[in-house]
C-alpha cells in the first residue's frame, strides 16, 4: 500500500510537470508571506518586513532546484532537455551537422556491413537445441579439416564416453533427379541426426535410428526441407508419401525414397550458406551405390558432429575420441597400404566448436573477413576524426555562448554532458543512416562470397546482434569523438566574450588538434589505399600472367553419357560424335574433351614410374585425360613431339603426353619422346609429346609434373567429361547454341556452358572479396579525409578573410595568396604520408597470403598511392584557394 503510494508520487513528480512545479511555488510563496506577517506582527513596516523576509529567504531558484533534486528524476529531465537543445543547435548549423552525420553514416555503414558477414559466418548460432554443446570432429590435415569414413564414424560413435550423441552427415551434396537442370540437393544423415539436434517436424516425422540400420541397408525414407516443400509441393500436406528419385553415380541405379516429413523453416543444414533440400538415411547409401562409400574404411565422405556430455571439456573429448580413432586404425591397418595407415595416424582428430555450424565456410573466409573488419575500423577512425574537427570548429563559433554559461555557474560536468548529448544525437542519426546503407550493400558482399554457386546463399539480413552492434558502435564512436571537443571547450579559459576576438585569439591551439587529425586521416588513407592497390595489382597479375594456358574465349560444358545410360564403348562413340559435330560448326576454332580443366575440375593423382627404373611406391603424379586438340583449345604450347592424333585408337599403342615439369624432374636433359612410363591403373604408356607446364589445381601452386593420358583410347571411360571449345567471336552465345545442337544428337544430359575465365575467377573469390571491400574502404577513407581537409581549409580562409583583404589591398598578387593555402594542404598531406607509408609497409604484410607477384614494398604501388593522395589534396584545396585569391578587399575589410 505504501509502496504503491510512493510509486504514484514518483510518477507524479516525473510526469506532473507544471502542476507539481506550481504547487512548489505556492508552497514557497505561502512560506514567504507568513514570514512577512511575522515581521509585521513584530512591528516592522511593510517594506522592512518584506525586505527582511526576502533577504532571509535566499535564492528561490536554488531552493527550487534542490527540491527538484530530491524528486530524483532530475537526470531524466536533464537528458531530455539536453537532447532537445542538441537538436536545436544542430539545426542552427545544418551544414556542419550534415557533414558529421554523413561521415558517421558512411563509416558505420561499412562497419555494419562487414559485421553482418562476420555474424553470419561465425557468430550466429544454429537454430537447434543448445547449440553451445555442439562440436565438430575432424582429422586435421595439412590442407584443412578432413572427413570421416563410415567405419571410422561407427567406431568412434560406439566407443566414446564423452558424447551424448554423435551424428554424421555426408560432406558432398548430391542431387535427386527431377529432370530439371537444378535438381534438389541433399545429404545422407545418421538416424540420430534430428534427435540429437532437438528438431521437430512441421509435418510428418523425421528420421529415427531404426531408419538407419546397416543390416537393412537403411529405409528408403526421406525428410525434406521447408524450402523444398514450398517450392516443389506448394506447402501441401500431400507431399508426405511422394517420392524422391536418387540415382547412383554411374547412372545405373535409381532408388525411390518416400518423403515422410518436413523440417522446420529455420533449419537449413549444418553448413552456413548452404541449404540442404533433403536428408536420407546414411546406410541407404549402400542401395544407391553398392560398391560405394559406406563400407570403405578409407573413404572420407562424412562430417561428424557431437553433443558433449555435461561438464566434459573439449580437450577430454578429444583424447577420448582419438583413443577410439587409433584403435580403429589398428583394426583396419591390414586392409590399407602402410603409407596410408601412416597418413591416417599422422592426422589426429580435433574437436572444435560447431555452435555456428560446420567450419568449412568459416575457415575459407575467416581471415579475409577479419582483415576487412580491421580495414573498416580504420575507416571509422577517419570518419570520427571528421566529426571531431567539425565539433571543434563549431565550438569555436560558440565560444561566447559557452563563456556566458560557464560564468553564470553552469558546472563543467553539466556542460560536458550537454555537448556529449549533441554528439550522441549525431552518432545515432549517423548510425541509423549507416544501417540503411548496410542493408543495401551487404547482399552484394554475400553474392560475391557465394561465388556464383547457385547452391550457396549467405543470409546477411540484420538480426538482433547486428542491430545491437550498430547501436553500440554509433553511440560509442560518437561519444568518443565528442569527448575531446567537449573537454577542450569546457575548459572555460575565456579571454574575451566577444566572438571575433575569441575566434582570432583561440585559433592557434585548436589548429594543432585539427592539423593532427587531418594528418592522421591521410596516414590511414595511405594504409588503406596501399592495401587496395596491392590487391588490384594482384588481380591484374592473375589475369595477365602466363599460367600455361589461355583463358580467353574458352567455353566448357559437361557431357554426361553415363547419366544418359551409356556404357563402355558407346560412351567413346558419343564423345567422338560430339567432337565431330562441334568442330564443324562456325565460330569454333578447336575442341576437345577432357577429364580435368586447368585450375578447375582437376583430375586424379596416380602412382608413377619410368620404365627401366626402380619404381617408388610413394611416387605420385597428377593425371589428366584429354583428347586430341585439347592443348590447342587451352592454348598450351607443344614443346616437343606431337599431340594425340587419329592414329591413337583403342588397340594401338597406349600413348601419353607429359609436361615440361615432369621432364625436368624425371628425365633432365634426356629426350623423353619414345620413353615408356607406368601410370597407375592406366598401365604402361609411351610418351609422344611434351607440353609447357600449366597450373592445374590453383594459380598459385608450384610447377608440378602432369601426365596427360588419352581420354578416348583407354577402356574405362568415366561417366562424364568436359567439352572444351576455343571460340572466335561471342563465346557465350556460341556456347549456348553448341549446347542446343549437342542435345539434339543424343538423349544425354549436357551441362550449361560456362567460360573458363569465369571459372578461374571463382578460385580467386577471397582475393576478389578483399579487393572489392578494401577498395571501397580506401575510397571512403580518401573521400572523408578530402572532405575534412576541404572543411578545414575553407574555414581557415573564412576566418582570415579580413587579413587576406588587407594583403590584397596592399598589393599581394593572387598567386601570393594561393600559395599559402596550397602549401598548407601539401604540408598536411605530406605529414600524413610520412606517417602512413611506414605503417603501410609494416601492416600490409597481413595481406601477404593474398598477394600474387607483388610485394608490400613495391615502389610503383606506393608511388601510385602517394600520387593519388596529393591529387586528391589538390582537388580539396582548389576551391578554398580560389576563393581566397578572389576575396574582394573592400568587402573583406568591412567584414569585421
Amino acid at each position, binding site marked *: 500500500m505504501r509502496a504503491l503510494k510512493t510509486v504514484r*508520487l514518483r510518477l507524479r513528480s516525473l510526469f506532473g510537470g507544471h502542476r507539481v512545479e506550481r504547487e512548489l511555488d505556492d*508552497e514557497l510563496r505561502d512560506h514567504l508571506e507568513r514570514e512577512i506577517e511575522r515581521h509585521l506582527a513584530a512591528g516592522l513596516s511593510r517594506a522592512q518586513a518584506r525586505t527582511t523576509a526576502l533577504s532571509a529567504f535566499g535564492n528561490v531558484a536554488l531552493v527550487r532546484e*534542490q527540491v527538484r533534486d530530491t524528486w530524483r528524476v532530475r537526470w531524466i529531465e536533464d537528458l531530455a532537455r539536453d537532447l532537445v537543445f542538441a537538436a536545436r543547435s544542430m539545426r542552427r548549423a545544418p551544414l556542419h551537422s550534415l557533414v558529421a552525420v554523413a561521415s558517421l553514416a558512411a563509416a558505420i555503414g561499412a562497419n555494419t556491413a562487414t559485421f553482418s558477414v562476420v555474424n553470419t559466418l561465425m557468430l550466429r548460432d544454429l537454430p537447434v537445441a543448445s547449440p553451445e554443446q555442439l562440436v565438430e570432429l575432424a582429422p586435421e590435415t595439412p590442407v584443412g579439416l578432413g572427413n570421416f569414413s563410415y567405419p571410422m564414424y561407427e567406431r568412434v560413435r560406439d566407443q566414446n564416453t564423452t558424447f551424448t550423441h554423435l551424428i554424421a552427415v555426408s560432406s558432398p551434396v548430391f542431387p535427386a533427379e527431377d529432370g530439371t537442370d537444378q535438381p534438389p540437393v541433399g545429404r545422407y544423415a545418421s538416424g540420430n541426426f534430428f534427435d540429437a539436434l532437438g528438431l521437430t517436424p512441421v509435418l510428418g516425422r523425421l528420421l529415427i535410428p531404426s531408419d538407419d540400420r546397416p543390416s537393412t541397408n537403411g529405409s528408403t525414407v526421406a525428410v525434406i526441407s521447408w524450402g523444398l516443400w514450398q517450392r516443389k509441393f506448394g506447402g501441401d500436406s500431400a507431399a508426405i508419401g511422394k517420392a524422391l528419385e536418387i540415382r547412383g553415380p554411374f547412372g545405373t541405379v535409381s532408388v525411390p525414397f518416400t518423403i515422410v516429413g518436413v523440417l522446420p523453416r529455420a533449419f537449413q543444414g549444418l553448413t552456413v550458406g548452404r541449404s540442404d533440400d533433403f536428408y536420407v538415411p546414411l546406410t541407404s547409401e549402400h542401395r544407391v551405390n553398392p560398391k560405394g562409400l559406406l563400407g570403405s574404411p578409407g573413404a572420407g565422405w562424412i562430417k561428424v558432429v557431437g553433443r558433449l556430455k555435461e561438464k566434459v571439456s573439449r580437450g577430454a573429448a578429444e583424447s577420448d575420441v582419438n583413443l577410439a580413432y587409433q584403435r580403429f586404425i589398428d583394426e583396419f591397418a591390414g586392409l590399407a597400404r602402410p603409407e596410408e595407415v601412416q597418413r591416417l595416424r599422422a592426422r589426429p582428430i580435433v574437436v572444435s566448436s560447431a555452435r555456428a555450424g560446420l567450419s568449412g565456410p568459416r575457415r575459407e573466409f575467416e581471415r579475409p573477413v577479419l582483415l576487412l573488419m580491421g580495414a573498416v575500423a580504420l575507416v571509422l577512425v577517419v570518419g570520427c576524426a571528421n566529426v571531431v574537427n567539425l565539433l571543434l570548429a563549431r565550438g569555436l563559433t560558440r565560444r561566447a555562448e559557452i563563456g556566458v554559461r560557464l560564468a553564470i555557474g553552469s558546472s563543467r560536468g553539466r556542460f560536458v554532458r550537454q555537448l556529449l548529448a549533441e554528439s550522441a544525437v549525431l552518432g545515432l542519426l549517423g548510425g541509423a543512416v549507416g544501417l540503411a546503407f548496410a542493408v543495401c550493400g551487404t547482399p552484394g558482399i554475400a553474392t560475391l562470397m557465394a561465388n556464383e554457386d547457385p547452391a550457396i546463399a549467405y543470409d546477411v539480413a540484420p538480426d538482433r546482434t547486428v542491430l545491437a552492434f550498430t547501436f553500440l558502435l554509433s553511440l560509442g564512436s560518437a561519444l568518443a569523438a565528442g569527448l575531446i571537443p567537449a573537454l577542450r571547450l569546457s575548459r572555460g579559459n575565456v579571454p574575451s566574450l566577444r566572438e571575433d576576438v575569441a575566434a582570432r585569439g583561440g585559433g592557434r591551439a585548436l589548429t594543432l588538434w585539427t592539423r593532427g587529425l587531418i594528418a592522421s586521416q591521410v596516414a590511414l588513407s595511405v594504409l588503406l589505399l596501399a592495401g587496395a592497390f596491392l590487391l588490384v595489382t594482384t588481380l591484374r597479375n592473375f589475369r595477365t600472367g602466363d599460367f600455361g594456358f589461355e583463358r580467353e574465349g574458352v567455353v566448357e560444358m559437361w557431357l554426361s553419357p553415363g547419366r544418359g545410360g551409356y556404357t563402355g564403348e558407346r560412351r567413346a562413340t558419343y564423345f567422338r560424335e560430339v567432337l565431330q559435330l562441334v568442330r564443324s560448326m562456325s565460330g569454333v576454332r578447336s575442341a576437345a574433351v577432357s577429364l580435368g580443366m586447368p585450375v578447375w575440375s582437376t583430375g586424379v593423382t596416380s602412382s608413377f614410374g619410368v620404365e627401366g627404373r626402380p619404381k617408388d611406391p610413394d611416387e605420385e603424379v597428377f593425371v589428366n585425360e584429354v583428347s586430341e586438340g585439347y592443348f590447342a583449345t587451352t592454348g598450351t604450347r607443344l614443346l616437343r613431339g606431337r599431340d594425340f592424333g587419329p592414329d591413337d585408337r583403342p588397340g594401338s599403342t597406349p600413348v601419353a603426353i607429359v609436361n615440361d615439369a615432369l621432364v625436368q624432374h624425371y628425365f633432365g636433359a634426356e629426350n623423353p619422346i619414345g620413353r615408356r612410363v607406368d601410370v597407375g591403373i592406366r598401365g604402361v604408356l609411351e610418351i609422344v609429346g611434351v607440353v609447357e607446364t600449366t597450373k592445374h589445381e590453383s594459380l598459385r601452386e608450384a610447377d608440378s609434373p602432369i601426365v596427360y593420358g588419352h581420354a578416348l583410347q583407354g577402356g574405362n571411360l568415366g561417366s562424364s567429361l568436359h567439352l572444351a571449345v576455343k571460340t572466335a567471336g561471342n563465346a557465350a552465345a556460341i556456347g549456348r547454341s553448341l549446347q542446343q545442337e549437342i542435345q539434339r544428337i543424343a538423349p544425354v544430359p549436357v551441362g550449361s556452358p560456362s567460360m573458363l575465365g569465369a571459372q578461374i575467377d571463382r578460385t580467386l573469390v577471397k582475393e576478389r572479396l578483399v579487393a572489392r571491400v578494401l577498395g571501397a574502404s580506401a575510397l571512403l577513407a580518401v573521400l572523408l579525409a578530402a572532405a575534412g581537409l576541404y572543411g578545414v581549409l575553407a574555414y581557415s580562409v573564412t576566418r582570415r578573410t579580413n587579413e587576406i583583404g588587407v594583403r590584397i589591398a596592399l598589393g599581394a598578387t593572387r598567386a601570393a595568396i594561393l600559395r599559402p593555402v596550397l602549401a598548407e594542404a601539401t604540408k598536411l598531406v605530406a605529414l600524413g604520408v610520412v606517417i602512413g607509408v611506414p605503417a603501410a609497409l609494416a601492416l600490409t604484410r597481413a595481406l601477404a597470403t593474398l598477394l600474387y607477384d607483388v610485394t608490400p614494398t613495391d615502389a610503383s604501388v606506393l608511388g601510385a598511392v602517394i600520387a593519388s593522395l596529393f591529387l586528391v589534396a589538390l582537388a580539396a584545396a582548389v576551391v578554398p584557394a580560389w576563393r581566397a585569391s578572389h576575396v574582394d578587399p573592400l568587402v573583406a575589410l568591412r567584414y569585421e
Partner: protein
Amino acid sequence: MSKPTDLVQGTLDLLILKVIALEPMHGWAISQRISQMSNDVLQVGQGSLYPALHKLEQQGWIDAEWRDTENNRRAKYYALTREGRRAMKQEAAQWERLSTAISLIVSRA
C-alpha cells in the same frame, strides 16, 4: 535565517518528524516550531526545510495534503505516516546513542 549550525541532514529529518508527530503542520509552521522548541537556537531556513520535506515525502515517511487554513489560504500540510513513526523512533534512538557517545568523549578533561 542562517542555516542551523552543523546540523546534518539526517538530524533535520529527525527534527521534522518529531515536530509533526504531535500534529500535522505546514512548512512554515514546522520551521517556527523547531525554532520555538529549541529556544531559538536552531533556525531552519526554507533552503534546507523544503528539500528535506520533499525527500521525506518521497521516502514515504510523511504524507502531504493541501488544506484550507484560516484566512482562506491554502497550505500544504505534512503528517506522519506509520512507517514515519517507526522511522522516527529508530532515528531518535540512534541520535540518543550518538550524542551520548560524543558527550562521553567531549566531557572528559
